[in-house]
């Protein structure tokens, strides 16, 4: 049974409860006295709005002009879609199919005005026809209580002896405005279509957010994968419809008592397949066990990248796509080892050996190596992380000194004379003597 936010009134009741006399609209106390062991759930307006948004998202694929009618309605302009779909029945069928796929219970209604469509859908007698006369007949039979007048207006009309919308429509407009006020007239005219009722179209947000709330807490990460699979395939579908890809997912795991965990899942390149995301998330879960039972999870995607045509494949797609294989491997490694574990190296324009290289996150670069042949000086292939003091006397000296002096501008001053020397162990070392006359090894000629 669902009760309203203040916990006073029953809004919905399950079949079991209604068989024992619990009706929507009765007070909670009455309901409790009828059935002692009622299970109650309070409505959450925020969540209702979110669910409505989610539904609008997929409906947006079928129709362009959508208006949200909180708390439970969606309006879509379909007059202009008839040509695209090839007739009204096809549109109706598409929407019904979408509803069936998502296992949603919804009442469809077609009306010549937004309000009319809404009222017809509420009655549950919606039919797939564009016949205005039929719609008006349906509306005329509608009791005033269901015509969405505010309660005050409704009682006033009922006291006048008006019971259905048809009675109201029959009255002359000027009299109606004079006696009952312009608001009621406007409402009635908006239903009939004699007064414009512009609707602001809903715009889909430029992000993807889905939440799964669990009835029972989930203790194992395996259990999270199942709802994630559904969300990720929604994401894949969404990305396909937008012709976009993404390279970062935000996953929020909410616990009952402790602070939620935020997981940031990155792929090394643009990706849209649910399977690839799921594999990365599975790896991540293996690395990070759950702290506590999870109450709900939220998947949020904010970064979108335009999709590029797959390259590097021949016409029949027989050679495996190396680019894709590369991204798969790097993403897997990153997911398991963490962000800083993978590095790519690049030289950096500086004379100090410690500063002459830089590491960066791994990225696939497609540029061709431009043959800028810099006359780089001879350097060892191994650089020690920190210079080590030289303990043994070198056996032979080969080249040097090469004086490197610099860094006065950023406080990491270096003044050294570098030599190439062979140690008694046979190793070729890059040794230097610094300003304090101490000898150090800085690299190996591996």
């Amino acid at each position, binding site marked *: 049974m669902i009760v309203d936010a203040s916990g006073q009134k029953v809004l919905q009741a399950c079949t079991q409860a209604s068989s024992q006399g619990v009706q929507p609209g009765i007070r909670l106390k009455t309901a409790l006295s009828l059935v002692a062991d009622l299970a109650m759930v309070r409505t959450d307006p925020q969540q209702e709005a979110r669910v409505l948004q989610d539904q609008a998202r997929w409906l947006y694929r079928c129709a362009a002009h959508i208006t949200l009618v909180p708390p439970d309605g969606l309006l879509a302009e379909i007059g202009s879609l008839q040509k695209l779909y090839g007739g009204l029945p096809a549109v109706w069928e598409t929407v019904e199919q979408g509803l069936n796929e998502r296992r949603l219970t919804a009442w469809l209604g077609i009306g010549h005005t937004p309000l009319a469509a809404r009222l017809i859908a509420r009655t549950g007698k919606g039919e797939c026809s564009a016949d205005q006369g039929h719609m008006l007949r349906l509306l005329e039979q509608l009791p005033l209580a269901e015509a969405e007048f505010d309660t005050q207006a409704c009682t006033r009309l009922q006291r006048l002896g008006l019971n259905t919308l048809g009675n109201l429509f029959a009255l002359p407009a000027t009299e109606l405005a004079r006696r009952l006020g312009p608001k009621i007239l406007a409402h009635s005219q908006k239903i009939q279509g004699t007064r414009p009722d512009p609707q602001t179209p809903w715009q889909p947000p430029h992000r993807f957010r889905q939440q799964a709330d669990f009835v029972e807490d989930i203790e194992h990460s395996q259990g999270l994968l199942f709802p994630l699979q559904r969300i990720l395939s929604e994401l894949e579908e969404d990305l396909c419809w937008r012709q976009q890809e993404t390279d970062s997912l935000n996953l929020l795991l909410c616990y009952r008592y402790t602070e939620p965990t935020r997981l940031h899942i990155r792929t090394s390149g643009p990706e849209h397949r649910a399977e690839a995301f799921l594999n990365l998330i599975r790896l991540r879960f293996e690395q990070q066990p759950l702290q506590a039972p999870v109450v709900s999870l939220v998947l949020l995607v904010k970064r979108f990248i335009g999709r590029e045509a797959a390259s590097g494949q021949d016409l029949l797609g027989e050679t*495996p796509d*190396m680019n894709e*294989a*590369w991204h*798969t*491997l*790097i993403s*897997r*490694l990153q997911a*398991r*080892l963490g962000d800083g*574990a*993978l*590095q*790519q*190296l*690049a*030289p*950096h324009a500086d004379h100090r*050996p410690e500063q*002459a*290289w*830089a*590491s960066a996150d*791994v990225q696939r*670069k497609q*540029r061709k*190596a431009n043959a800028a042949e*810099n006359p*780089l000086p*001879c*350097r*060892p*292939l*191994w*650089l*020690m*992380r920190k210079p080590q003091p030289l303990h043994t006397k070198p056996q*032979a*000296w*080969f*080249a*040097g*000194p090469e004086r490197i002096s610099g860094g006065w501008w950023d406080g990491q001053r270096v*003044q050294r004379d570098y*030599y*190439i020397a*062979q*140690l008694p*162990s*046979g*190793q*070729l*070392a890059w040794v230097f003597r610094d*300003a304090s006359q101490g000898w150090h090894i800085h*690299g*190996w*000629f*591996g």
Partner: protein
Amino acid sequence: MNELLSALKQNARIWQGHQPAHTSQPAESTGYQALDNQLGGLGWPRGALSECLLDTPGIGELHLLLPLMQRLTHSGKTVFWLNPPHTPYAPALVREGVDLDQVVVIHTKDSGDFLWTLENCLRSPVTGLVMAWPGKLALRDVRRLQLAAEAGSNVCVLFRERCHAAQNSPAALRLELQPDANQCLHVQILKRRGSWPGQHCELPLPQRAGLAAAETSRVVKGPWPKSAR
């Protein structure tokens, strides 16, 4: 039966001591003719583990692999360095003609991650060469890696200490590296598929420090003034 036997011989699973077998195992040339000759004209085996056993860095062990690295990075294959003991120095690699866009350095925290990473790299088609410094490695793990290497077709070189030379290993190729006079690298073949081990060769590698072979010393000698800074 005969087909089976010849297939085994072709893959160098069985070899006859009295005749040098010409096998068709996939391999990558080392880039050093002297070493290739000793390895039956083939080079580094692909889809199998190779081991380099050495005590200290700086004896030319990277130069042994440098020709392969150059070739692979320019053909678009990725070279992975797994847990290198020191920093691979980017300016030197560029100078030697290695395309750094294809070089990925990975550091792992524990041996579980190390094995997992190595296996994944080995199985991927993008990998050309994996160089790994495993530290301690159980025999069971080497066998597991050998299986992973067989699943892919890339060169994998493990750098291990020379004290492991006496132990047996499932690796397809085992080389013992020692420094020699005149900046040479002495390579002793401990094991290879398809033939007797025990060959050895000397690779002159003075160019790794920018020295010509004949040149002895280019050190500018003192006297240094005492007050020099």
